[in-house]
């Protein structure tokens, strides 16, 4: 692929989150498109707060400084729905009152108006992850791996510009885990999305084959190596 512009990707600039005055962590990072940054840390080290800050859900009890910049645009004060940052949780969180297809349709941007086109997109997405024919199913009847795949496609159909993954594979059993993980990473790279992966499974980090950052509250806990983007491996 062509050279990425210097400002492309997700930049966390001097991000620091405090709770009741006590610092949780500090981080300084640049994730270029198609790259995966794996964040690891103890329970309570602030992994969820970091994701909340990047996605725009941080509660006011936390004090945060620093900026979130996506493809050169400062998102720090942009409301969550306008950030175009896709989010995947530990559990797939398919909306239980909708069918599989409705879950996907919900995510497709309104700019695509044609009903048939929207439907086509959603069906294609299902097909892409090997779930053709599941469109009218009740999400509760799908297996864990199937649900995660639908959740992934729901996230991608919204045309995000970055992906945040909050231990999305932890609820899957060993066999499925590798398959689903590869699928997620493959699609993220294919879409040139910068990915922030939070996990405490070292295997996830290894599979991401990118940089791994250990979150802690020590000063200068940044991943400065990322400031100069370099191709790590496996980019097409």
């Amino acid at each position, binding site marked *: 692929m062509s050279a990425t512009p210097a400002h492309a990707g997700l930049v966390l600039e001097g991000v620091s989150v405090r709770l009741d005055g006590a610092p949780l962590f500090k981080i300084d990072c640049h994730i270029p498109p198609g790259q995966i940054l794996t964040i690891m840390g103890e329970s309570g080290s602030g992994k969820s707060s970091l994701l909340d800050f990047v996605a725009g859900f941080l509660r006011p009890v936390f004090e945060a400084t620093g900026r979130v910049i996506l493809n050169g645009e400062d998102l720090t004060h942009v409301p969550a729905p*306008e950030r175009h940052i896709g989010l995947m949780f530990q559990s797939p969180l398919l909306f239980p009152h909708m069918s599989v297809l409705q879950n996907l349709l919900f995510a497709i941007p309104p700019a695509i108006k044609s009903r048939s086109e929207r439907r086509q997109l959603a069906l294609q997405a299902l097909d892409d992850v090997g779930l053709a024919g599941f469109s009218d199913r009740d999400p509760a009847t799908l297996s864990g791996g199937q649900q995660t795949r639908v959740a992934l496609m729901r996230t991608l159909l919204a045309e995000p510009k970055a992906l945040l993954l909050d231990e999305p594979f932890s609820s899957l059993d060993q066999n499925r885990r590798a398959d689903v993980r590869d699928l997620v990473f493959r699609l993220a790279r294919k879409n040139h999305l910068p990915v922030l992966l939070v996990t405490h499974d070292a295997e996830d980090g290894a599979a991401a084959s990118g940089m791994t950052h250990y979150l802690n509250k020590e000063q200068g806990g940044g991943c400065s190596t990322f400031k100069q983007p370099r191709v790590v491996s496996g980019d097409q």
Partner: protein
Amino acid sequence: MPQSTGRPDIPTVLIVTLLTGPVLAGLMGTILPAFGYLPVLGYHSISPEPLVALLRTPGLMASVALSFGTGLIASILSLAIVLIFTAGWSGTRTFERLTRFLSPLLSVPHAAAAIGLAFLIAPSGFLVRLVSPWATGFERPPDVLILNDPMGITMTLGLVAKEVPFLFLMTLAALNRPHIRDYYKAGASLGYGRMSTFFKLVLPQVYPLIRLPMLAVIAYATSVVDVAQILGPTTPAPLAPRLVAWMNDPDLTKRLMASAGALLQLLVSALALLVYLVLERLVSAWQAARFASGHRRRRDGFARLAGLLPMVLIVALMTASIGLLGIWTVAKSWWFPAALPQRWSFERMLDAFGVGGHALFATLAIAVLAAGIATALTLWLLEARSYRKLSARSRVNTIVFLPLLMPQISFLFGLQMLFLLGGLSGTFEAVLLAHLIFVFPYAYLALSDPWHRLDPRYAKAAASVGASRMRIFWQIQLPLLLRPVLVTFAVAAAVSVGQYLPTLMIGAGRIVTVTTESVALASGGNRQVAALYALLQLVIPLAGFILAALVPSLAFRNRAAMRLER
């Protein structure tokens, strides 16, 4: 990211005004006359005269003691029955079955329940008739004091029968949260008995959610009017019904004294709340000391049985009372000791439907509007506050529950004056507004917990795919909460239907509901008609609860995860 600035959001301001405005204004309208100031009636000076007159009233202390005692004992008894039953039986088939019985009982208005109970347990009532004369030898009803006993025992029983379903459903809602089952498993795996597990592991977690409803029950029970009028003592009566009588006395000076009495009522209810809070502390300290004791109490069979009995008894009493109301509606003549009417007549029932149709429609219109507005406002408030990420427990909660923690009569008199001054008295809108003040807190009580329990990640997931705030609310949050929203609507409608004093005082008699009709008819001696109207009071709330149960099952019949209570 939306920031919580110092500027409060619109729904918070709106609701705080809606609730505190009338309550405070009403309270002022009570306090001033209590100190002898009521210029419109020609009382211009501040004086202790009304208070002195109040304190000189014969039997005042007895009335105060009755209000305090019956209210507090009935409330604590109700909570004990609910908790012991829940501790012993939660998760069993018996529990499920009784739950199904108790939920509709919540829709029975207080007055209707009291009327039915009176038919059942009076010396000439159904129970005595069932066993007379063949077993008791009674050809005539025995002259035994059961109803209106001077100690208020029957009244306490009536209050317990009515408050148990309410507290039970509140407890049920509190237990309906993730991981509660795991605590039961944890307790059992550590060798604790079912009841010990509940009291040591589960209750401490869910009690904070039951606490506010419990306080509302105490405030209500210590100042109840309609149940006291039907089942309570009269020599003397508890404070609240006496206040209403003074307020309605054609003698003007009694109105000042009634206002002073209303302040006393406020004090009595506040004292009852205080005593309860102290008791609560003591019990929790005692309980905390026992956490570490390691007693497992695995053999709790007897305690469980003791917990089951009162609950079954209450369900049986309430069901029988309502059944009895049903029989009375078609009974023309029913002489003692016959167990069934001698002469039946459907005429009067049909008559009443003709005459009562108008009242039923007015009741329905007010209930649907009040419940609809209250539910919508609650959703608005919850959505706005969670959007701005304000904490769930805050001062707003205290304000929302203000109308529930203060006896109605302590500010209703003043409120009536206010509406009169504003030229609103007797209008549909005024009654609707008055209902809203009392309906909204219950709507908030019913909905705020399900709202806060809704996994916030659904909203995040929706936002992360670009859904707007409106879209998240209408397409994700509202459908996910459809069941609790409908239950809230039904609860709110039931509360509206049950309002007697606000309808009467603010409606100036022009707004006639089945409840005002029912109390007017209960003042006569015709049981057939009294029973009929008591049942009519039940129709709307019951319909609401049935709809709340049916609609979600129909709407989500193909969605497995939505069938679970959430």
